[in-house]
């Protein structure tokens, strides 16, 4: 793997008395698409929530481009360039698509640049432009995911983390969103994708980490892992 942009070492985290992550070490390649896969309850979402500052790590380190960011507040982590598209989209009800997108740029003060980023998102997902005045939570599932990704992009991140891209979406839509991610990645944005659907994740990403009960059990390129008999049996049903 070329140089790592985000490096996580021996990370432990959890909620209250419940420890979820026991020993996570992950390296996210600079400029690439990396995925984290694992079954329900393995700790994928907890990992993203710890990276984005919603949860404080109990031990271990999280480094972005060499700088330790573990334990910082969410706004400080966003300022350093990590955006988190949460599981289930979590769009703001009562606000239009446009206002939801603008909230992604909440910390930015460079108005003309925000405008050009808005146009980038509207070009990427033309349906959002069409529905820009509509309450974001009235969109279809796929459109909501587009809006959530667009909202993440509007912070102009260096690393975009997406939790469960495919959740509740038809395969054709997932493919379309995957293509959009590859397109975005080509502009130089590093992407960390968390997925339960291993086939989808391996189609999009180059590197993968498999998480089981709060520990990394396997890691490698998606091409190699895709040939691994255990993964094929456990996650792909082949």
């Amino acid at each position, binding site marked *: 793997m070329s140089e790592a942009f985000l490096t996580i070492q021996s990370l432990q985290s959890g909620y209250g008395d419940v420890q979820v992550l026991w020993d996570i070490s992950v390296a996210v390649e600079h400029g690439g698409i990396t995925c984290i896969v694992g079954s329900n309850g393995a700790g994928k979402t907890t990992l993203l929530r710890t990276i984005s500052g919603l949860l404080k790590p109990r031990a271990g380190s999280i480094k972005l481009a060499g700088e330790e960011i573990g334990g910082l507040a969410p706004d400080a982590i966003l300022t350093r360039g990590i955006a988190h598209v949460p599981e289930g989209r979590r769009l*703001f009800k*009562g606000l239009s698509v446009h206002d939801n997108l603008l909230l992604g740029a909440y*910390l930015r003060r460079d108005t003309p640049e925000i405008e050009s980023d808005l146009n980038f998102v509207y070009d990427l997902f033309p349906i959002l432009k069409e529905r820009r005045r509509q309450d974001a939570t009235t969109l279809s599932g796929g459109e909501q995911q587009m809006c959530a990704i667009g909202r993440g992009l509007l912070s102009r991140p260096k690393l975009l983390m997406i939790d469960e891209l495919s959740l509740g979406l038809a395969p054709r839509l997932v493919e379309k969103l995957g293509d959009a991610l590859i397109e975005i990645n080509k502009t130089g944005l590093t992407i960390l994708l968390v997925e339960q659907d291993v086939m989808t994740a391996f189609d999009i990403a180059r590197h993968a980490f498999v998480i089981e009960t709060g520990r990394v059990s396997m890691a490698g390129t998606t091409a190699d892992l895709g040939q691994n008999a255990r993964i094929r049996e456990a996650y792909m049903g082949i």
Partner: protein
Amino acid sequence: MDLLQILVNGIVLGALYACIAVGFSLVWGVLNVINMLHGSFIILGGYLTFFAWFHLGVDPILALPAVALLLYALGYALQYLFINKVVTSPVLTTLTLTFGLDMILYNLMTVYFTATPRRVTLDMGSADILGVVMPMDRVLGMGLAFFLTGLLYLVMRGSTIGRAIVAVRMDRQAAALMGIRVNNIYAITFGIGALMAGAAGAVFAMVFPVTTNLTGTFLGKAFVICVIGGLGSVPGALVGGIALGVIESFAGFLIGPQHAITLGFVLMLVLLVVKPTGLIGVKGYE
């Protein structure tokens, strides 16, 4: 008395009511805090405006923005230092806390300012249009009340801070992921609630005498208006306020002013049974 006159009286009163309720509704809707301090904030705003006018000769319209900012600072500090510590607790906890804070503020005002009714007298004369007689200070009060309520509406709909407040109201974790510092937004929201209360108090002092004995009445009105209009929106508070003002005005004429206040609460009970979301349902905070 002429029906048109009663209607106009009701609308003037209703505009003031809307201004009283809108901050209470904002705090309740966004923070899920029933702010027992709201009545005292209104009276504090009224007293400060009166003192600025009476002792320093400051025009009440010039005093209003200063009083409003002062109340904003007080509200921000109270939320940041105290209420934020328990803001995610059940509503009874925050209600008890604001009740306690209100006891302190109410008693301090009574001790240092006394409960003497005070009023700014502007002597602006009155207007007579189509047989409706209206003192000009009341017309001014109504105009200011509509202006302040409209201003809040615009801020909530069109500004970054307004969007952030709605975002926090809808999903505080997702809001944190946008880089919004949730505790700061809570304090700003409570500050705006106090600001609107202070401004409403300033307007009230130009039209009616204010005294600390009225804090409970104002709090009760804010409560009734939120239930009538529907919680969590500026239009809701506006509709609820004007509805209550007009109803009280007609009730005062038909069954006597002593029963007008009771009628407001009866109406609230009826609405709670028939249409619990109020006349205007809730969407975002707008």
